[in-house]
């Protein structure tokens, strides 16, 4: 700021203080009024500390480093000390410093960006207000109201902002690990069924999604009807606890297996595309398909963990991750239902029945224009009619 500008600001402040002094004298009330676009400063009433703080900060920004005076009052920048036996007439305003009182303030006292220490013998006859600081009572007296507004950072242990991403990351790792173990179990004990559900996903994706969606819509009414039916049958009431337990479990199992089948399908598609492109991928197996698929889903949630804190965008990332997971789970549920839990390969795209791919079928079934081969070791045997 240039010297001329500083002078103009100072002149404006002196004028403003002069007006405030005039009003204060006329009303026989000590105080300061600063004509500002946002309103005037009132030290007589401290009932709206947020507004007063805003006004004081505006004043400090408008006149940085310029000494302020309020007629009949004391304005201090930096630390202020009032000794025992000393008296401060009118209101006191301490800016950007601590106030240490052992004497008497006859009016209100306001401290901005500092603490107020009330030592033994200190008396504030009016109200005491500390903005962004604390009142430290060492035996002093405030005859009016005492207010203090401060801000404090939470300790590290309870700081969710700092630990949040790591906790979420650990949670995601736990979920992925759990799903991986469940998936490995499925591959180990029910690989054909898992593959059927997975193939249903691959070959009937849209149909699976619609089926899953429909299942979600009708699941609760169906369960409700079942419960009502059991209640109406009177005897069926005994089965209610069992049904109430089994239906949610079945639904959860269907969603889980379906979701794992979707990840299996994702991994398989990815690897097959890479192999088709000539990449060397090692051993393509179901375990690997599952890991790749689960990793792909985890990446979506990693985006939320990394950038979930960003306003608006974070919520959008969360929404994307949630919707993606829901869509996958819906497809999986639909595929599970279409394939009857992996028992019915009607929607797997297997147009040729498995037995058609066996040597027995090929030998036994004549193809148009192709002479059937002779079965080894059966000289003179004729081709059978289908």
């Amino acid at each position, binding site marked *: 700021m240039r010297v001329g500008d500083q002078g103009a600001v100072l002149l404006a402040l002196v004028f403003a203080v002069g007006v405030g002094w005039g009003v204060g004298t006329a009303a026989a009330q000590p105080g300061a009024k600063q004509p500002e676009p946002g309103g005037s400063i009132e030290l007589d009433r401290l009932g709206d500390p947020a507004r007063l703080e805003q006004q004081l900060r505006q004043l400090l920004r408008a006149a940085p480093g310029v000494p302020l005076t309020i007629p009949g009052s004391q304005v201090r920048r930096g630390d202020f000390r009032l000794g025992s036996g000393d008296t401060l007439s009118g209101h006191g305003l301490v800016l950007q410093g601590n106030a240490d009182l052992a004497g008497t303030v006859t009016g209100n006292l306001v401290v901005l960006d500092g603490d107020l220490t009330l030592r033994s013998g200190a008396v504030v006859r009016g109200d005491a207000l500390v903005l962004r600081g604390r009142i430290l009572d060492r035996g002093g007296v405030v005859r009016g109201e005492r207010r203090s507004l401060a801000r404090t950072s939470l300790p590290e242990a309870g700081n969710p902002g*700092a630990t949040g991403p790591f906790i979420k990351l650990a949670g995601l790792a736990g979920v992925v690990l759990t799903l991986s173990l469940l998936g490995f179990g499925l591959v180990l004990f029910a690989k054909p069924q898992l593959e059927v559900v997975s193939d249903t996903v691959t070959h009937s994706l849209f149909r699976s999604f619609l089926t899953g969606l429909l299942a979600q819509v009708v699941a609760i009414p169906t369960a409700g009807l079942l419960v009502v039916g059991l209640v109406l049958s009177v005897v069926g009431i005994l089965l209610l606890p069992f049904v109430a337990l089994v239906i949610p479990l079945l639904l959860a199992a269907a969603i889980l297996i379906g979701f794992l089948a979707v990840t299996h399908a994702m991994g398989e598609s990815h690897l097959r595309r890479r192999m088709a492109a000539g990449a060397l991928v090692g051993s393509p197996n179901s375990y690997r398909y599952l890991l790749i698929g689960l990793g792909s889903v985890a990446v979506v949630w990693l985006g939320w963990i990394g950038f*979930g804190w960003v306003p608006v965008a974070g919520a959008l990332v969360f929404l994307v991750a949630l919707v993606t997971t829901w869509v996958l789970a819906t497809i999986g549920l639909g595929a599970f239902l279409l394939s009857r839990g992996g028992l019915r390969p009607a929607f797997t795209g297997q147009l040729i029945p498995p037995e058609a791919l066996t040597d027995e079928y090929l030998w036994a079934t004549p193809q148009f224009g192709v002479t059937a081969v002779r079965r080894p070791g059966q000289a003179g045997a004729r081709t059978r009619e289908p």
Partner: protein
Amino acid sequence: MTKGRPTRWTVPALLLLAGCGQAPVLGEFEYARPYGGEKRLPARIEFAAGRIKVGRTKAANLYQMNLRYDPDRFRPIGSYDPDGMVRLGAASIGKGDVRVGRSRALPQTAHIGFAPEPDLELDVLLGAAEAELDLGGLRLSSLKLTTGASRTTISFTTPNPGACQAASVTSGAGQVYIASAGNSGCAEWRFDGGVGKVTIDLDGAWPADARMALNLAVGGVTLHAPKRLGIRVTMEGFLAKFAGDGFTRSEKTYTSAGYDAAARKLEVEVNSAVSGVQVEWK
């Protein structure tokens, strides 16, 4: 192209680091007024979320409040009207975003105290809060408590030196526990409950006979009663049921043994849709 990678990953990495460095800030608000011989004190407390404790002041204050609040979502309330009414607590500033889990909520707390000298007319409005109101020793002249989804404990550890006309508790979906209700000295109690559980310990001094009206939708009320107290319960409502030993039934009225001879009597009227009242003798 390895040369492009640092540029590609710099911005996301910086954003990630910035996210890790966020430190939530709590606002602290202290507000007190020294006791100046006031005869009555109407007080209204609003507290939207967090933990709140209400009791007696430690220093010679008419009232005092120490509040820790989330400045991004709440603002402190602290005012004393010229007519002598004090308003305390924390109100929402209407900037709530999606904070689903409790782990993300800041530990908002309020400690509020009142002087034991003036007649206290207490009006408390709680949101999703956990509240402990120890009103023992205060000159409570009336109590009105409205809670949302909260867990509230009101205790009267020592008898009320004043005269309480009425106390009313309206609970949305929460738990309410009242300890030593006899010390409150309130001649009339009224409970309006939505879905929740109400437990009332009827111990205490009982300076006079009292009436209690329980209007409940779904939930249960348990009364822990001392044997010296005579209790008569009138049940009104659909599917409301009563359980208690030593009661004589006459249509909708259940009368405890020795009711007529009891020094203090409590009339309980229950209006309930689907809930039950259970009396357990101490």
